[in-house]
């Protein structure tokens, strides 16, 4: 195993980590702020990919514009789903369970709608012009698009961090275990906030899906693995931990990259193994402080 192989895999892992983090951040955003677990987050990721396919491949629109359209589309659909349906179960007893069931039903419905509109064959998306080639970094050759993803991801992380730490809405979002009544008591328009945050979260999911689309084939049913990957990221990094999620994504991305290169058949099982090991040895996550027992 030579150095250039390792370096190539490291960068590949960074690309995967970036995509993982983008997806996981959308999921934890709505969970942290609104206490809603969107089981269908992967479906919005998938919709982002399909919207990108539709605009870029079918309508021959520029990739970057397509990316924006895909994100907006996913975001808008998310807001509709929240406004029309999710909102009806806020405040119910055992709300958590019903949330999961309702968002689960979204997965089913969206899956079949996608099948109906686009069929079940694999769709593909070309990488944007200018990034189809590769870039030389010393002795190694890297695909340009993968590098671009890393750069975009870093930009998004920096922007997200700035918003979360410098702006008022950001600080509200950061406070953990904030419930809706408390938000309301702070003078926040809760229904509007919920819808907006849900829209931003699903837009992030769609953005990740569209960005990843040229690297993977676009198929229905991709949703569930996305949720599990996001879960593994959060398990590794610790629940509710922004930087923990980032490190979790990094670790998982790198592990996956090397696994794909070394044991391609069993690469997806490897990610589960990482999760199980973390659960056994440090269930609160690698970056969470050790908890002392409290009530």
């Amino acid at each position, binding site marked *: 195993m030579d150095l250039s192989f390792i370096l190539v895999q490291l960068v590949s892992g960074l690309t995967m980590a970036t995509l993982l983090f983008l997806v996981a951040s959308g999921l934890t955003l709505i969970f942290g702020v609104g206490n809603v677990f969107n089981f269908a987050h992967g479906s919005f990721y998938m919709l982002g990919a399909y919207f990108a396919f539709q605009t870029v491949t079918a309508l021959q629109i520029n990739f970057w514009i397509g990316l924006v359209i895909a994100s907006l589309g996913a975001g808008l659909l998310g807001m509709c789903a929240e406004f029309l349906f999710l909102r009806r179960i806020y405040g119910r007893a055992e709300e958590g369970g019903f949330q999961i069931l309702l968002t689960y039903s979204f997965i089913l419905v969206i899956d079949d709608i996608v099948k109906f509109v686009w069929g079940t064959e694999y769709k593909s998306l070309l990488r944007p012009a200018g990034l189809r080639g590769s870039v030389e970094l010393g002795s190694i050759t890297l695909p340009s698009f993968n590098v671009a993803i890393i750069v975009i991801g870093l930009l998004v992380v920096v922007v997200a961090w700035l918003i979360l730490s410098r702006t008022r809405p950001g600080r509200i979002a950061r406070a953990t275990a904030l419930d809706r009544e408390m938000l309301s008591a702070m003078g926040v328009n809760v229904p509007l906030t919920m819808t907006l945050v849900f829209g931003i979260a699903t837009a992030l999911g769609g953005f990740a899906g569209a960005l990843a689309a040229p690297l993977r084939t676009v198929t229905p049913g991709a949703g569930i693995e996305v949720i599990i990957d996001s879960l593994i990221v959060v398990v590794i990094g610790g629940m509710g931990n922004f930087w923990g999620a980032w490190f979790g994504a990094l670790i998982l991305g790198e592990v996956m990259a090397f696994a794909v290169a070394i044991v391609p058949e069993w690469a997806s099982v490897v990610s589960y193994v990482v999760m199980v090991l973390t659960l056994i040895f440090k269930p609160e996550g690698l970056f969470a402080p050790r908890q*002392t*027992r*409290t*009530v």
Partner: protein
Amino acid sequence: MEPVLELKNLNKAFGGLRVTNDVSFTVMPGDITAIIGPNGAGKTTLFNQITGHLVPDAGSVFFRGEDVTGMAPQAIVAKGMGRAFQVTSIFPEETVLENVRMACLARRNEARRPFRNISTFKQATDDAYAILESIGLAQHAQRAAYELAHGDQKLLDIGIALGLQPSLLLLDEPTSGMSPDERQLTRDLIVRLWKEFNLTMVFIEHDMDTVFGIAQIVRVLHLGHLLAEGTPDEIRNNPEVITAYLGEEVQ
């Protein structure tokens, strides 16, 4: 006679804030004692350290001669420490009888039996009915707990704790949220239960009529520190206590 509860130099701090400051006292069998203090004095935190929900930073808790400091809550309860709650904590969908019966079954180590129908556990059922009679809820036995009035739910909370036949019963503000009439009834009930079930009780209270009406020993907590302990009269006339807390509340 061996003390039921013994606290030795308990200390606890959250961050820089010392919430329990070198607290020590002893509770003997049959005592009925109150812990009072202004809000934020650390009364509930103290209870939590006794019941195992918080681990003290230093010091020990001895229950019936055994060091239970830092033990898991359910282990301590299983040894005979019962607790009733300020915010009523019952099983709302179960019947009133069932709520108490579960405690009676638990005491007899029968709560985890997976096969026989629960109504065939005669002894536990009889014990539960006896408790319901004592607290005056027998006529509601078959009603769902959530249907009870707020005051009755509080009684049920105590009833559940009684089902365990506790050697020590901790009551967290038993009369909170009650009207003056209800408070009097509750006071009478507590005294009656204390005699009938031979209980040892420690309760936290803000209502001074209750405290001075039924407690034999009163302990005053102020900023986590045990300011004074003594009979109600001694406490009522203790200048430090008056300064710190009672003010015009005592007449």
